[in-house]
């Protein structure tokens, strides 16, 4: 049981939208496709879904070429789309029918998802009569209605209020528990950290970082030091060769080259009797890893784009 993306690429004339990209989901779980705007995430997703032809590579689902037309694949697109003038239940029946579902299955599934996503009472409304958040819920129903084994979620939480974002998160957790294969693209790094095991960071059509998120973090080591004291510790930090990266009323943040530096600073603070309120030595966040990798890739390519 696996999804294997092997060397897929896309070229538009002289422009390369996606350089050969490979990754694999050997087990059920969430795989993150990250990247700046225009990095090639949607192109990769469209190739996986068979919407776009590829210049090279293949997409294997359980060892065979993936055909979304015959396999159960759910897709929540980044740019939401519903027929504005048609009734919600008619649209969902149509989408479900296209997935090859039978009438009974459709009605049962629709009833479940309308309850689960708190859409009861909206069945006979036209899409244009619904709020943006509710339209997004309807799209989520469209993605999940056929109980797909492979689910592709492109920015699933964008534009949702905190209550509905939590609702969507709980649904995603349920899908993980049900051993579904999920590919998620999202700009909210805490969400990725909450759900994803493996990641690919794309930039200008190329993968600049790939792998297991925990391992990536471990490979960086604990290089982030946050300190809050009731006194000035900047001279002490300077003695340890540390310059603050960020100074806020709440704390001082340092980037350390090794853990000995952090220990040395801690020792000096204790020796100088400055009251210590907060001391944290941690791995970099995904946000930091993302930014660092994009900047490095730009530097290597001689680009000066802003992220």
């Amino acid at each position, binding site marked *: 049981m696996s999804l294997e993306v092997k060397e897929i690429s896309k070229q538009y004339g002289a422009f390369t939208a996606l350089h050969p990209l490979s990754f694999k989901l050997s087990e059920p779980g969430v795989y993150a496709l990250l990247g700046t705007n225009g990095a090639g995430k949607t192109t990769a997703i469209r190739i996986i879904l068979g*919407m*776009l032809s590829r210049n090279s590579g293949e997409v294997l689902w359980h060892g065979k070429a993936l055909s979304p*037309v015959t396999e159960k694949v759910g*897709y929540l697109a980044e740019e939401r789309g519903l027929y504005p003038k048609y009734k919600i239940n008619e649209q969902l029946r*149509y*989408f479900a*029918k296209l997935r090859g579902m039978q009438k009974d299955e459709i009605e049962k599934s629709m009833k479940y998802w309308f309850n689960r996503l708190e859409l009861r009472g909206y069945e006979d409304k036209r899409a244009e009569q619904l709020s943006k958040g509710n339209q997004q819920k309807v*799209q989520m129903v469209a993605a999940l209605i056929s109980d797909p084994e492979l689910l592709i979620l492109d920015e699933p939480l964008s534009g949702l209020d905190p209550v509905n974002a939590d609702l969507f998160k709980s649904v995603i957790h349920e899908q993980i528990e049900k051993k579904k294969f999920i590919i998620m693209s999202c700009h909210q790094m805490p969400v990725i950290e909450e759900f994803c095991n493996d990641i690919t960071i794309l930039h200008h059509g190329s993968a600049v970082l790939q792998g297991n998120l925990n391992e990536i973090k471990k490979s960086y080591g604990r290089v982030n030091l946050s300190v809050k004291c009731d006194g000035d510790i900047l001279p002490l930090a300077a003695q340890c060769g540390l310059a603050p990266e960020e100074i806020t009323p709440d704390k001082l943040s340092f980037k350390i080259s090794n853990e000995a530096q952090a220990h040395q600073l801690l020792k000096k603070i204790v020796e100088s009797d400055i009251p210590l309120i907060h001391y944290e030595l941690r791995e970099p966040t995904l946000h930091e890893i993302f930014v660092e990798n994009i900047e490095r890739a730009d530097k290597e390519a001689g680009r000066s784009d802003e992220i």
Partner: protein
Amino acid sequence: MSTYGWKSIFGFTFVQTAKSKAFKISSVIIIILVFGMALLAGLLPAIIGGNSSAGDSDIVIDGEKPLDRIYIADTTGITTAADYEKVFATLGLTPVFSGEQSDCAALIEQIKGETRSLLVTISETEDGYNIYAARPADSSVSSDTANSCGSAVQQVFNLTRLTKEGLNGEQITAVGKTISFSQSIAGEPTENDFAFFVKMIVPMLSSVALFILIFSYGQLVAQSIAQEKTSKVMELLLTSVRPLAVVIGKILAMGSLALLQFIMIILSGVLGMCVSMPLTGMMVANSQDASAMTQQLTAEIGKAFADFSPISIIMIFVIFIIGFIFFALIAGLIGASVSRMEDLNAAMQPLAIIGVLGFYLAYFPSAMGGEAGIMSTISYYLPISSPFALPSALLTGAMDIPQALLAVAVLCAFTVLMALLVARVYEQIILHNGNRLKLGDIIGIAKNK
């Protein structure tokens, strides 16, 4: 290339479009318009004939008495005062009759100075007889009244004349029967004014109806695809079906709706003609001329329809379907080439120009009564005009079945070529975002694929 799912797309598009207000309203308008036009076409000869009729033997009185006095001067000596008494008794009039010695000039002078009087003179000419009705100058007697009274005098005079010639009642009825005239090139169907009318109007109307249906529904295909693309529904659809299935489903759904309205047009037209017949009968029951005109027009239309072989009728529907598919494929491609709805009209312009060109190519030979030989031939074999030209050519017998089959084969070949082109580039352009794709871009995609 998988076309799985086209049936679901067909069903959904058909039902949703048929449920739309636009379809319902346009269908009602079409039914009313075509029914009304057919009704009018059936009634028009009766109305015209009825108004100009000079053959009514009974004088109809609407409201007040139309005359106070009628003078009849028969200089031929064939009739007498008694012959007219019965006819004019219905008006409460006793004709002032004068015979062979009548001084018509003096009577005319007399009428000039009178009011609500009418003079009818009967005189012999070299060719036969002349009946003349003179009204006063003060407009107290209408032209219609003069016509009615004149024709009543004509009927009585004719009947008396023939009786005096020794003819009995049956012979007089036989003599009075309407004789129609027609002519044609030897071996070809007969022609008369009505035949020409039917031959000219039917193709013109069919060309117009086909153009409107094929073109407007082609536009709807483009609109529907562009809407799905710009509203991003297309991305959702493409997780379940291939783009070609979307095009096929949509074209067939819109084509079926166009066909439905085409059938509505035919049925409304036939119903209008059917309703017009008894109405015409009621309107012109006593008018031989008007009745004859209506009968002749109805006969020509009936003859035109009776001349259709089942194969012609099947071919008309086949031509309609293939013609629609040809234009709808192009429209679908255009719909897929735009990323914003506001670009669609500009993108459709070249197709609109081609369509109008094709329509006029088909329409002009029809309007010219099939006299434009080369132009007709071109319009039959050119795919942009043949869907509009071929049905009318079959309707009027301007082309025979083998010729029509050849023209349909040419149209089919172009439609298949168009379908191959669409299949080749559609998947490439359906998710294109950004500037509208030009023809050159599409050709480039077709070449590079």
